């Protein structure tokens, strides 16, 4: 059982996902418990895997079909991967809990079963991406997650959602086309698809084919930058994330864009190890481009967010800005920078899910979507408003909250690489964040009729949000807990 656990986690979610429409036809009420069961197994499995990795200090590997790596497909779970697994399943489970209360009313009961299908398949595909140690396997899971993510956007079925889903699908396919081209070049250079063997072989052969190697690197950067919405390539994100149903927005903003950034980090630092980390001109150029674009993302995303009147669009542009932090960490490449990037992947997943879910509650229960109608919400929905405010303050980077920890370690990373200008950037971006989040929080707590709540908020929509807000506080007070794991992961990234 334990030996097969890595695959079981993915397969269990896949099977549960495909069972959902049948179960929904039989009895709609049984969908949510079954999905919860599958997610619960995912969370437990990921925790067991993380525990195994930490206690043994060795990566957990699994060879599919019993074929050993150069020939067969391998799955490998190391510190970084186990961190991502726990993050994906944990936040995914909380969002699913919220969705069980929300989705029936938001989308109509007819599509509930199919919604769970897309959700569980997306989770399974992201887990597969996180643990894949085979480049083509990574590509296939990437496409599955791309299609499921578009399905989650299109699930609403209205005009905006359909347009946004098509735009997302087209751009995501261009991104994966670039990634597949890059994989093809690596296969041509090395004759392997397994990450470890590609890395080993690439270090031997790359100086004979420098052009192909660097073109492959650039293709990976471009492909994953499109998929994780780095600033000039972000145009699909605000439409897709704001027109989707609220649980979809949370999972798209919180998890989906992160897994692509993580995959890029893994490729750059594990596959191109010893190339990307050295001071070759092209490697420096790629880093420089990453740094410039992430700076533009941090400033541009916030500036666009400032002028939004729709709360979900505002949150979507804020995601563009926050992805800038992650790419800044990747571009800096110092131990603290990479650790901050991974820490921010975790912190932002929790903060942004909390914001999108509580905004979803505002939209669903009070019927307010425009920022100006938010006045007085705190009276009718005290818990949800408190959670929203905590997450918003955390986003700005108030000291005892999670967002502060990310910014602190990112600044440390910038100092470590001798680029103090990015510390200034952190401060400026905190001011920009405060500029659009503080009025929002102020308006929630100001006097007003607050779009009087039409009905009681179900417990399944209130508790997940509060839980996420509590996570913000805990991670802000004790950032060392995830960092202990993250630093070990980063050591592996920078080892060779």
């Amino acid at each position, binding site marked *: 059982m334990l030996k097969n656990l890595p695959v079981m986690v993915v397969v269990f979610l896949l099977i549960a996902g495909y069972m959902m429409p049948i179960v929904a036809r039989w009895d709609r009420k049984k969908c949510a418990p079954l999905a919860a069961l599958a997610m619960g197994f995912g969370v437990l499995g990921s925790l067991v895997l993380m525990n195994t990795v930490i206690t043994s200090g060795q990566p957990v590997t699994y060879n599919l079909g019993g074929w050993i790596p150069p020939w067969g497909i391998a799955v490998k779970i190391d510190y970084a991967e186990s961190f991502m697994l726990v993050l994906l399943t944990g936040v995914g489970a909380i969002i699913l809990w919220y969705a069980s209360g929300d989705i029936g009313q938001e989308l109509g009961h007819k599509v509930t079963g199919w919604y769970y299908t897309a959700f569980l398949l997306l989770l399974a595909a992201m887990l597969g991406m996180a643990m894949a140690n085979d480049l*083509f396997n990574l*590509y*296939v899971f990437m*496409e599955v997650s*791309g*299609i499921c993510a*578009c*399905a989650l956007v*299109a699930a609403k*079925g209205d*005009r905006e959602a*359909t*347009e946004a*889903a*098509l735009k997302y*699908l*087209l751009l995501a*396919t*261009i991104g994966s*086309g670039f990634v*597949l*081209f890059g994989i*093809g070049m690596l*296969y*041509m250079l090395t004759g392997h698809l397994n990450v470890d063997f590609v890395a080993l072989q690439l270090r031997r052969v790359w100086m004979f084919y420098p052009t192909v190697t660097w073109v492959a690197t650039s293709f990976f950067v471009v492909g994953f930058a499109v998929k994780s919405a780095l600033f000039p390539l972000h145009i699909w994100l605000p439409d897709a994330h704001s027109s989707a149903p609220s649980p979809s927005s949370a999972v798209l903003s919180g998890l989906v864009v992160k897994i692509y950034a993580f995959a890029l980090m893994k490729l750059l630092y594990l596959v191109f190890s010893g190339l990307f980390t050295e001071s070759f001109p092209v490697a420096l150029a790629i880093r420089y481009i990453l740094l410039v674009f992430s700076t533009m993302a941090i400033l541009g995303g916030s500036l666009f967010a400032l002028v939004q009147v729709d709360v979900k669009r505002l949150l979507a542009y804020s995601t563009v800005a926050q992805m800038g932090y992650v790419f800044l960490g990747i571009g800096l490449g110092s131990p603290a920078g990479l650790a901050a990037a991974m820490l921010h992947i975790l912190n932002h997943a929790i903060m942004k899910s909390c914001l999108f879910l509580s905004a979803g509650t505002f939209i669903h229960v009070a019927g307010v979507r425009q920022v100006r109608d938010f006045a007085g919400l705190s009276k009718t929905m005290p818990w949800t408003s408190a959670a929203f405010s905590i997450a918003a303050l955390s986003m700005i980077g108030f000291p005892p909250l999670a967002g502060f920890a990310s910014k602190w370690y990112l600044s440390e990373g910038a100092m470590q690489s001798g680029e103090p200008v990015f510390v200034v950037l952190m401060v400026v971006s905190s001011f920009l964040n405060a500029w659009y989040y503080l009025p929002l929080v102020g308006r929630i707590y100001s006097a007003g009729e607050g779009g009087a709540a039409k009905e009681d908020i179900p417990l399944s929509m209130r508790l997940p949000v509060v839980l996420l807000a509590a996570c913000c506080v805990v991670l802000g007070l004790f950032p060392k807990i995830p960092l202990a794991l993250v630093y070990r992961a980063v050591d592996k990234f920078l080892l060779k």
Partner: protein
Amino acid sequence: MNLWRAVLSNYPYLVSLVLFGIGIATVLTRSNLMKKIIGINIMESGVFLFFIASGNIRGSRAPIIELGTDGVLYANPIPSALILTGIVVSVSVTAFALGLVVKLYKFYGTIEPEEIIEIKSTGR
């Protein structure tokens, strides 16, 4: 001169890059949604050709090993097997995209984004 000879003798790679470029240009410059989807398919064909070409050896045979035929070159079957999966992925993406386009056509009665924007701005 040497470069040109190298490029010309490896023409499948050149063709695959050209296809990739045509595909991307089509997606980015054409506004018609159907043309965009066709562009995606052209782009993916370019990638597929690249994979297949990397597995081919000039003068090689299909990798079906017969006894008593030593010294025969066989093509690498792995890229072809991978691309079979790639084609399946590409077909499903195309099907999904076409489904979305059909839905948009039902909403607006057109698949030209300019006309869609016009319909939206005038309030149908």
